[in-house]
């Protein structure tokens, strides 16, 4: 039983609960899109998305929305994850898997350092 005995107790519950509901109000923060067309799903996008959700939850990250998107036409690079951080260029990660996805959450979303070698740009340079 979580008895609330002070404003601090209430604040604690509020912060926890906010994570449950903030996708309904917060549309300004970081957006992560996962390609979920047939090609993406076939290449394993679903475990990637689950890993992202799980990692965000484990690390108490708020203000991030995870959305699905359709095929962007780069089927051979799927699963593709795109990262929109306000005020920064979009970063497109390709050929993701759950482990990579978890690292992206930690390095890019939390620490603010994109992992360049997994991006579309680096693939094009090769």
């Amino acid at each position, binding site marked *: *039983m979580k*008895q609330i005995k002070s*404003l601090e107790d209430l604040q604690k519950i509020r912060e*926890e609960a906010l994570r*449950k509901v903030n*996708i309904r*109000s917060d549309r300004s923060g970081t957006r992560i899109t996962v390609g979920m067309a047939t090609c993406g799903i076939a290449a394993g996008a*679903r475990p990637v998305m689950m890993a992202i*959700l799980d990692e965000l939850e484990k690390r108490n990250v708020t203000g991030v*929305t995870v959305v699905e998107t359709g095929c962007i036409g780069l089927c051979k690079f799927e699963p593709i994850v795109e990262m929109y951080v306000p005020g920064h260029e979009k970063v497109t990660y390709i050929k993701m898997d759950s482990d990579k996805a978890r690292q992206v959450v930690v390095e890019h979303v939390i620490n603010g350092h994109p992992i360049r070698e997994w991006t579309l740009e680096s693939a094009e340079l090769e």
Partner: protein
Amino acid sequence: MLYRSHVMVCGGTGCTSSGSDNVAAAFVSEIKKAGLDKEVAVIRTGCFGLCELGPVVVIYPEGVFYSKMKPEYVPEIVEEHLLKGRPVTKYLFGETVSEKEIKPLEETTFYKKQMRVALRNCGIIDPEDIEEAIAMGAYEALGKVLTTMTPEQVIDEMKKSGLRGRGGGGFPTGLKWEFAHKQKETPKYVVCNADEGDPGAFMDRSIMEGDPHSVLEGMAIAGYAIGANHGVIYVRAEYPLAVKRLQIAIKQAREYGLLGGNIFGTDFSFDVEIRFGAGAFVCGEETALLNSVMGRRGEPRPRPPYPAVKGLWNKPTIINNVETFANVPAIISNGAAWFSSIGTEKSKGTKVFALTGKVNRTGLIEVPMGTTLRDIIFDIGGGIPDGKRFKAVQIGGPSGGCIPEEHLDTVIDYDSLISLGAMMGSGGLVVMDEDTCMVNVAKFFLEFIVDESCGKCAPCRIGTKRMLEILDKITSGKGEPEDIDRLEKLATTIKDTALCGLGQTAPNAVLSTLRYFRNEYEAHINQKKCPAGVCQALLSYTIIADKCRGCGLCARNCPVNAISGQLKQPFVINQEACIKCGTCFEKCPFGAIVKQ
């Protein structure tokens, strides 16, 4: 569990009656079938306001708005939108969809001019989960009040905010609390009037269904301010969903220690119980309500003494309406200055209205005081259906009045409405188009009053009955020129002598229609015509010979064989035999029959 997407299915009474239960069940089963149940949550919320378009579903994070949902649409939405991330535009609310983008709900004309204070969480949270309410800031105002403010400071804040009672009377809330606070006698009581009885009004129901914690929190704050430890919500038993959600909310608030003893670790205790009303209109009157709560006959008594002095069990009691209480936490959290910056000079804040009748988007809206009726009906409400002309809007329920087109630009506040012969009331807005007979409208409201009059005082019991008889006479074509004077005289007498607010305002429907639509009364009486073509007894149906093709359909369908003629020749209606049922008028495929 963190979900990436929330499917918000409206669980208000409006959408529930149009089938949102089945829609929600379909989402749950389809989402499970698609294996998405770990990432997509289905949540039942309170009213979104656009009841016309129900059942309503909003899917986040995109915030897109599906309207008029059916369980059959759900598999496609799950497959396309939730699985592949492509909103299914054909099921979205048309106004939000354009070539380039899908607009979120708040950018539609329905929401743009609205400002949601009392409805702040309706449609946004799951009303059966206290944590969602807490996430949106519920109970912070209560915590602030208990730990940092004295009761006097709370009352002062309420007075400064300018909040006036939302139940109809418009009495300043802070002043009411101050009266009760100054009473020495104990115990004191806080009563929430949830006996919403106006025809077509569902503001309070929607707040209780969509955000019950805002009401509980407001009551607890009031309890602290006046020194009461006991709250009673008087709600009509006809609101089963509101009752259920209130019960869940009370239970959860107790579990979290937000109701009960030593709230927020202070020595303030407050608990709330629910009392059911059987739906008598008069029990919305505060003294009748108190009698009903105490198990007595629901009849009003003369005031003074006011309930603030002698209320429940003869102890000091404040009675506020649901919407009033829902405003209280917002005022405490955001400050009196914020609240009083909204609205007009003497009416502060926002008001919730139930928009019904001949208007395109019926539903629940909340606008700042000072919005014009035109904005509400034509911008938010989307105007009159089928290109018909606006005639009047009835505001304030049976106690209110009808406002005609020439006053549509009046700004809404307590005082401007009174000066137009209407009143704010609890916030029912019934829009009427050119096909509405104003005498008939007055009769409808008076019938309601006669039905609901408790019978305790003679002016209301006998006077309204006599007025109804006169109106009956007029609408059945037996009106005499003196009838208008008789109506006016009766109306004034009832106004001056009835015991309670209900009786005193009972003649308003007649007085306001007489004031703005006297010509319609005169047409009924002098020409024996109903200009809107509503009053059956004053109608006559005739066949225009030029348009009649002589098909005989009218004659075959006439239940009293009043139509005769030869095939391929114009038919004729025998006016003596005609019972004016209108069947021929509806059946004629060529529009050859006119009613006048």
